[in-house]
């Protein structure tokens, strides 16, 4: 399961609401203890998708390299990635799946009319053909 702590959660929601009506993205860092991943730090990153960002996001690999280095520097792990779905539900779309990486948790925040609505976490498989819902605990749940 994945637990998101208050400070990290506030930053994720603020980033998603600020970038509305576009999609936002970022990295989640924290410790992993057995099956429990705890997001202690959220790192908002720039959506580098060159086209319409209302429906797409793209992370620069060098930004993820930075996130990985930040995690190592602080004795934490890169747990996963978050992004927003403006005015639609927090499902894991075909585009999300085909451009995902099975090593990480993917938290999707549904932002409706500019405000946080709900969130889900997803675990894609190795072949990027399906994603399982992961138990998610956050302060607004």
């Amino acid at each position, binding site marked *: 399961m994945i637990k998101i702590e208050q400070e990290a959660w506030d930053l994720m929601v603020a980033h998603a609401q600020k970038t509305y009506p576009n999609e936002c993205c970022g990295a989640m860092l924290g410790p992993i203890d057995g099956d429990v991943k705890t997001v202690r730090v959220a790192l908002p990153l720039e959506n580098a998708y060159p086209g319409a960002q209302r429906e797409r996001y*793209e992370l620069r690999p060098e930004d993820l390299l930075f996130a990985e280095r930040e995690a190592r520097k602080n004795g934490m792990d890169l747990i996963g990635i978050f*992004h927003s779905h403006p005015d639609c539900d927090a499902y894991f779309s075909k585009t*999300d799946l085909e451009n995902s990486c099975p090593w990480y948790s993917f938290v999707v925040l549904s932002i409706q009319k500019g405000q946080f609505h709900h969130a889900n976490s997803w675990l894609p498989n190795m072949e990027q053909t399906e994603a399982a819902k992961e138990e998610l605990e956050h302060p607004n749940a």
Partner: protein
Amino acid sequence: MPKILIPTPLRQFADKKDAVEVSGSTVGEALGALTAAYPDMKKNLFNDEGKLRSFVNVYVNDEDIRFLEKDKTAVADSDTISIVPSIAGGR
């Protein structure tokens, strides 16, 4: 020997190490040495045709090997190889 930094989710396949020193004078040789030492790592990094999976980027220090000489990119003993995911999406 060049050092490969292991992303957290893959450490379970590398005796929980966060970095592994490997022999090899190119990125391809270094990754080959890594997967030879830790065979379970292979399916995470390479597809059935032996090509790097679409979501895997490899950096030597701060440089993406796609913009160097890909798997033939030379590595020296002091170099650090990073495995970085490629991630995008959309509703």
